[in-house]
């Protein structure tokens, strides 16, 4: 396990008859940002809960630095849960101090860390404000600070930017990058935001229905599904959708045609040059188009290609 800090071996979790995680096998490298990408209900949080020892797996093992997760030094991991897990009646400083105390951080070091964290996450002015009086974005940032107060080797962030405004998201993303680049931490990031996974992750694991579907760098994943562009088309009625999709499939250089969230998604080489022909054909057939756009391949398209569907919300 040299160079790896965490390994899941045939990790399986069943809730009654429901198979939440199905024989998950993966290794996470030291010092990387590892993206765990999947729709809501894909099994990301369940996997993570097992990986940090909060949930017992039905079968399989988790090794942290080659040791069983049960025997792991609790200081090794810091987890930022998906939900806001804060003591609402305590101030920002009091929340951080409590967690620092729980990890036996020496008092002088703790005071310094609290100050630094509040500064890095733009919460200094709110140090003595009760959590109940903070905005959603501030709470989310404090939620992250709570996970790293003891300077863990592995930082696990479960959908950290959920519900954040763009400004707070930028602060968060910068901080996640600094964790890897400056503090040399290993960051495990679960998200259903393709953009987030794409921008932050060194490697991405795509998981759906409890199964690991792909694991690679975002660049390799995008390369794997081809260089083609994406045409997204919205039609006003569903009756014509099938006809249009069949027509697009027959076009030259078409790689794939799928329906995602009510939109027709065409991936093809040199898609821009095909636009006049497509529009002309549909006009001839009296088919109206509500919306039409062309864009470059993204990680979302990788996901669609692999799962055959868009992200479930």
């Amino acid at each position, binding site marked *: 396990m040299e160079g790896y800090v965490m390994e899941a071996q045939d990790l399986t979790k069943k809730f009654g008859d429901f198979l939440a995680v199905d024989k998950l096998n993966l290794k996470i490298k030291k010092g990387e940002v590892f993206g765990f990408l999947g729709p809501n209900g894909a099994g990301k949080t369940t996997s993570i809960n097992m990986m940090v020892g*909060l949930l017992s797996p039905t079968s399989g093992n988790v090794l942290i630095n080659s040791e069983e997760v049960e025997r792991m030094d609790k200081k090794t*991991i810091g987890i930022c*849960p998906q*939900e806001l*897990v804060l003591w609402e009646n*305590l101030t920002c400083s009091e929340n951080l101090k*409590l967690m620092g105390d*729980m990890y036996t951080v020496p008092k002088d070091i703790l005071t310094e860390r609290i100050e630094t964290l509040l500064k890095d996450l733009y919460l200094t002015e709110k140090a003595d404000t009760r959590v109940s009086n903070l905005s959603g974005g501030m709470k989310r940032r404090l939620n992250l600070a709570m996970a790293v107060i*003891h300077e863990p080797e592995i930082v696990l962030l479960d959908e950290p930017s959920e519900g954040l405004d763009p400004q707070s998201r930028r602060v968060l993303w910068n901080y996640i990058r600094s964790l890897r680049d400056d503090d040399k931490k290993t960051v495990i990031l679960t998200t259903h935001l393709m953009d987030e996974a794409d921008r932050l992750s060194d490697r991405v694991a795509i998981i759906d229905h409890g199964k690991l579907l792909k694991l690679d760098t975002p660049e390799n994943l995008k390369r794997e599904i081809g260089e083609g562009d994406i045409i997204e088309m919205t039609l006003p009625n569903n009756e014509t959708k099938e006809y249009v999709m069949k027509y697009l499939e027959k076009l030259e250089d078409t790689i794939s045609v799928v329906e995602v969230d009510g939109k027709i998604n065409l991936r093809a080489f040199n898609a821009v040059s095909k636009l006049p022909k497509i529009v002309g054909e549909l006009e001839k057939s009296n088919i109206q188009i509500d919306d039409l756009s062309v864009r470059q391949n993204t990680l979302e398209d990788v996901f669609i290609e692999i799962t055959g569907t868009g992200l479930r919300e």
Partner: protein
Amino acid sequence: MKFMSIASKDLKELLRDRRALFFILLLPIFFMLIFSFAFGTMGQDNQPNNIAVVNQDNGVTLPNGTTVNYGNNFTDTMKSLKYQDSDVNLFNITQTTDENASNLVKQRNVDLELIIPPNFSQSVLEMEQSVQGSGNGASLNGSNTVSSKLIIRGDKGYSGFGTSLSILTGVVGSYQNSIIGALGGVDPEKFIQTSVEGIPGTQSFTAFDYIAPGMMVFAILLLSTSVAAMLTKEVESGTLRRLKLSEMTSFDYLFGGLLPWSLVAGAQIIILLVVAIMFGFHWQGGITSIILAVIIGIIGGVASISLGMIIASFAKNPPQASQLGTLIAVPVSFLVGAFFQLPQVVIGTFMGQEIQIYSILPWYQVATALRTVLTNGGGWNSVVYNIAAAIGLTAILFVIGVYLFSKTRLKSEKT
């Protein structure tokens, strides 16, 4: 010292949560006020007081040769006494043997038993003669007096005992005075004394004096609801999960939580005592009794915290914990006699103490001890058994609470 951080956290959360504080502190005060009006001196109807009389008086032969039994005379006097401006008798008297009288007290069929000693008539006669002697200018030689002692026995934790005792004490005094008449010059205490076993006499004992310590126990019991709700809130909000991920141990969490809640229990005793005194509670004892009551309250608080842990082991969310807590705390309050005296259900004896079916609940011991200390003015020796029993029972409850809460909430989740 992680438990100190947990204690500090819990205390801050508690003090900053106004709704919780209201529930914990003001609600019992509100109940105390209601009960003070309902069972205090205000609006109390006159009722005959049930007492058992054991007349062991041998009687006495007067100088003129007639035989008189002052014991019977005193009993008849008591039978004929009525409340002022009322047709209601002061006493409903059952004349019986000592053994049967004790049973009647235990069954709560009577409030107390009055034992008239064999030499009662002799002492009354001497008192009469000394009064006459005093009237004739003769002096009484105290060393030759025959004094008798009326013994009053009863359950010191029973409110009826206190009420009947205060009236009876007054009646004895009146009886002595009626014999002495207007002549005066004689101390009747030299001839007829009263001995109260287990309780000092009070002049205006009301049912509220019994209920006030019960209300303190009720308030302490309600802590279980607050503790259960707080613990369940930690589970629901995920903060307990966060703590579980850290180096905190079950001991840190549960012992840390114990400290502020114990302080609350102690504070409740003091606050409720002040409120009760303001509204007519006849508090016996001094600072020592308050210190003792706070210690007893803290023991009861720990028992309630343990009950809270048990409730939180099963409740899924704070509203459910509150409902479940109330569902348990209120009936338990009745079961430990917080609001009214329960029938005696003796299941055995231990170290000379009767074990009742309710005795297995630590709050029963707490309630009894609080009444002994605050209402009856009893000291450490009077409550040592109750305190020891309360500590023992609380320890058992605490172990069960820690076990269940640790098993269900502090371990890795299996499902």
